[in-house]
């Protein structure tokens, strides 16, 4: 159940990192309290000719000084929803194009797949499950390289959001130790992120990692002699979690109620048993990677779609949702495709998937109207067919309500955001060392959830103010005393080190380009303001700004690095950064 990482080793690394950080902090604080505030710089105040507010892409700006603060804030707020995290330069670039233009450009970018990177690491290090780096980490290296360096940010991010809907995980050892398993899975999500939901659902259904994770690989038809029945696992979860949920939904995501005022279940156990018959007969498509190294056991290919073995597929008709029946006698793959279509056509999918993706990408408590607008886009509007993922993503990101997003940033994305916005560079553009501490300190890493129910429930709330308002906060479920210390220390470990992230192997050094902030370090207010724009979309509260400014000004202005580090550290752990939104 546990990933094969050397936790003891990593533990010693974090203490090294923190040790270095404490020395610097102490150094910073030993310098007395003489720093006083100065007049705020005007370089970032509105100085360009006022535009009409929304970016049109025609503003003739040539340098940062000319950009309006309003436009930069607007760009920063959009990009913190649509990317893993934007640098100051990317924010500036965004001010020159409209949201529609930006989206269209993202839709056109080629897919930056993860598998080629995994193959590169396999060529470099070979496949040795006892070696460092462990091949099970190669797909994580690929994630970091793409999340940080790839221009197709929106696609990478949508695929990431889909990993939290179609959840699989590297916690089972066979998935962890197969380096191509989850890179292939992520690539599958990337390929369909801007495609059609029906194709996405079919590809996920046939992916061998999903087959392993929800046990419909090697799922055989009923055997009356042995008294065995088809496995019900995928049949249940594909309905409960991936498509329609437990209750009939209105377009706006609210429950349809019966005359007694009760929600109406979408299926019962009999329907699950019918679907379980559909998902029989699938097995691995090929023999997998390095056969002699998989403990000498069965060695599945986790990067080739599963294939059908008709003789293990349950015969007979299957009674699906909405009275639809798969006829007796059709091919097994026709059964699978028919079941996927049956699910895809269910009226719940738009509001169910739409709301889940709004919660992952934008806001925890979308209004019913927002859900309805997104569900309508899913259902097909204008030229776009039902299930068009571009239409879905566009509707989610361009909705007026997206501008008032309120959500706790989950630890993993906080970390990715921080790293990306700190403008990391390495000699070859790879960042294999970056993810090492993240899971250890925060309990979270891409595709490493404890179960198919993800790291948190989309319905999580807690008694008190939240529940009284009828609000949920999924990410609050993993916001505990322990993880909050973990993410805080991850910020410290990243900022307070001389160079390079310590890793168990001699990976390329990663350096952060903080020159943009060093240039502002003399002027505490300008420094805090710029960090607030770039990192928090200008949503850092006034209270936080003033507290951070007071702290920064305790440090002599000549000590630029300490000023920048402290301003970043405090910003990145402040509640008004950790929680997307505005003060009420």
């Amino acid at each position, binding site marked *: *159940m546990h990933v094969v990482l050397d*936790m003891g080793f990593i533990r010693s690394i974090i203490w090294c990192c923190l040790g270095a*950080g*404490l020395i610097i*902090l102490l150094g*910073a*604080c030993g310098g007395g309290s003489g720093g006083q505030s100065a007049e705020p710089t005007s370089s970032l105040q509105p100085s360009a000719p006022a535009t009409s507010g929304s970016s049109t892409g025609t503003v003739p700006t040539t340098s940062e000084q000319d950009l309006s603060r309003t436009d930069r804030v607007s760009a920063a707020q959009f990009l913190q929803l649509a990317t893993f995290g934007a640098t100051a330069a990317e924010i500036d670039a965004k001010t020159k194009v409209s949201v529609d233009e930006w989206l269209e450009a993202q839709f056109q970018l080629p897919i930056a797949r993860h598998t080629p990177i995994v193959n590169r690491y396999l060529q470099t290090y070979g496949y040795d499950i006892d070696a460092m780096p462990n091949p099970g980490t190669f797909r994580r290296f690929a994630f970091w390289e793409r999340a940080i360096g790839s221009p197709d940010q929106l696609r990478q991010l949508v695929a990431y959001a889909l990993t939290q809907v179609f959840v699989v995980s590297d*916690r089972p050892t066979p998935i962890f130790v197969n380096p191509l398993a989850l890179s292939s899975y992520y690539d599958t999500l990337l390929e369909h992120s801007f495609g059609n939901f029906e194709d996405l659902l079919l590809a996920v259904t046939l992916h061998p990692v999903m087959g392993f994770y*929800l*046990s419909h690989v*090697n799922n*055989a038809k009923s*055997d009356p002699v*042995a*008294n*065995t*029945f*088809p*496995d*019900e*696992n995928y049949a249940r979860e594909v309905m*409960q979690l991936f498509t329609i949920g437990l209750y009939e939904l209105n377009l706006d995501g609210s429950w349809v109620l019966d005359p007694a005022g009760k929600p109406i279940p979408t299926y019962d156990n009999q329907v699950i048993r019918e679907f379980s018959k559909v998902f029989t007969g699938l097995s691995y498509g090929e023999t997998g990677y390095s056969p002699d190294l998989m403990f000498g056991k069965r060695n599945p290919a986790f990067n080739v779609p599963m294939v059908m073995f008709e003789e293990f597929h349950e015969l007979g008709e299957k009674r699906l949702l909405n009275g639809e029946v798969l006829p007796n006698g059709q091919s097994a793959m026709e059964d699978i495709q028919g079941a996927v279509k049956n699910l895809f056509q269910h009226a719940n999918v738009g509001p169910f998937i739409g709301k889940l993706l709004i919660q992952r990408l934008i806001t925890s408590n979308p209004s019913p109207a927002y859900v309805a607008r997104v569900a309508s886009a899913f259902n097909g509007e204008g030229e776009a067919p039902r299930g068009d993922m571009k239409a879905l993503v566009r509707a989610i990101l361009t909705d007026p309500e997206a501008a008032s997003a309120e*959500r*706790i940033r989950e630890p993993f994305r906080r970390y990715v955001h921080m790293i990306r916005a700190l403008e990391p560079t390495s000699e070859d553009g790879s960042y294999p060392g970056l993810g090492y501490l993240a899971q250890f300190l925060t309990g979270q890493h891409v595709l490493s959830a*404890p179960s198919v*129910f993800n790291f948190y*429930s989309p*319905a999580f709330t*807690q*008694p*008190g*103010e*939240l529940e009284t308002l009828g609000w949920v*906060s999924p990410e609050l*479920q*993993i*916001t*505990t*005393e*322990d*993880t*909050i*210390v973990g993410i*805080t*220390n991850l910020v*410290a470990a990243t900022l307070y080190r001389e160079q390079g992230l310590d890793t168990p192997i001699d990976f390329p050094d990663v350096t952060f380009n903080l020159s943009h902030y060093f240039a502002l370090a003399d002027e505490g207010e300008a420094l805090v303001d710029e960090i607030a724009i770039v990192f928090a979309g200008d949503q850092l509260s006034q*209270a936080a700004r003033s*507290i951070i400014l007071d*702290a920064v000004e305790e*440090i002599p202005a000549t000590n630029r690095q300490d000023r920048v580090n*402290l301003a970043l*550290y*405090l910003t990145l752990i*402040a*509640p008004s950064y*950790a929680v997307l*939104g*505005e*003060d*009420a």
Partner: protein
Amino acid sequence: MSAFRRRDFLRSASRLGLLTGLGGALPFIHQSVLGADDSDEDYRALVCVLLAGGADSFNLLVPRSQSAYSMYKARRGDLALDLNRLLPIGTEQGATTFGLHPSLTGLQGLFERQHGAWLTNIGPLVEPTSPDAFNAGQVDLPLGLFSHADQISSWQTVDPGTRTTTGFGGRLGDLLINQNSQQPLATSITLSGSNVFQSGRSTGSYSMNANEGVRTIGGFDDSDVFRSALIRLIADDRGNVLRRAYADKLDSAIETGTVFREALSQAQALNTAFAADPFSSAMAQIARVMSIRQLLGASRQTFFVTYGGWDHHEDTLGQMDNMLPALDQGLSQFFTALEELGMSHQVTTFTISDFGRTLTSNGKGSDHGWGGQAWVMGGAVNGGQIFGQYPELDVDNPLDVGRGRFLPTTSVDALYAEFSRWMGVEPLDHPSLLPNYAKFVGESQGIGLEALLAR
């Protein structure tokens, strides 16, 4: 939770000596309570071990006598354990004798020493439910029956007809917190993050790291500038609902974390050795915290730990062989540690899981079921017994609602009612504690556990 968080943080931080540089020993704890004799001590704790995923508990407690084993073998098919691998235990129901999964040697010993008991065919119910009423759809049933998301909650909330956000441990904590006046957040401690079991109306859980206990925020103890800025952020950067929820956790991480760290630094090392697996490590942390209960001023506590990965739709036998030794070690070593601390009779530990699983196989493993077996252990447990009626595994048993999914014959309400009384709370005096319990009083699914714990 919020009731304990709306304080002046600067004041409490000052009390802890954080701002004035006092540091060191906690000013409000008398050293004399260290090592106090517990013979007259009024301390009791419940430890909830969640086997997340739905452990196949019809392979934990298995009938051994010939006819019952034959039926078991016939129904389970390729999931049946070999008769000669079962660990015999000295109890019977009618003509049926029983054995344990071969990995449970520690639990076998605790059972034989009468420190552990099994509960059989127990599960969540909304109201007394007969097979006929179930089949006729005449009763309210747990929401999302047979599904993980709801059933894992049902065992924790024991209010399975709703999707409530509070759990039994949390609601019990609401009633007991006044007995833990020095450190309210010591009432509910989790080693596995947030959980609905310990979520109460006014109390929540304090989260510790299973490996490291209480971790420290980098720089907090060493930089005055950083520390005071962070404390001000917690106090003032809370301008909307979610920011307040976040700031409250950060507050608790620092404030309660400091108290715990100070107290734990005075904990005596235990002679009992724990295995290194994550579950056993978590149990070791619980034993450590219990050893400093007096420093924390705690007299009633719940602890929560998850051991996940039991959703064995595939390779059930192999996966259980892999996973049960850690469970067996962690539980038995924990009991040994409690004996070393002289407090085994003050702590009751129990397992819960999403559901039992289907008796019948899907050819590789088992699917989601309903009633199942639970383990309860502690010095107060009237052990060496099976509580409840182990079901006939016959396909014609009306309790079998399909593929060997068993309608529970004991409701979780009955178990938690017994726990409540042992902790000093009469459940019928507090209807919101166990909202459905009154419906089970005197009914077959609500009785039979009155002698589980010595009081």
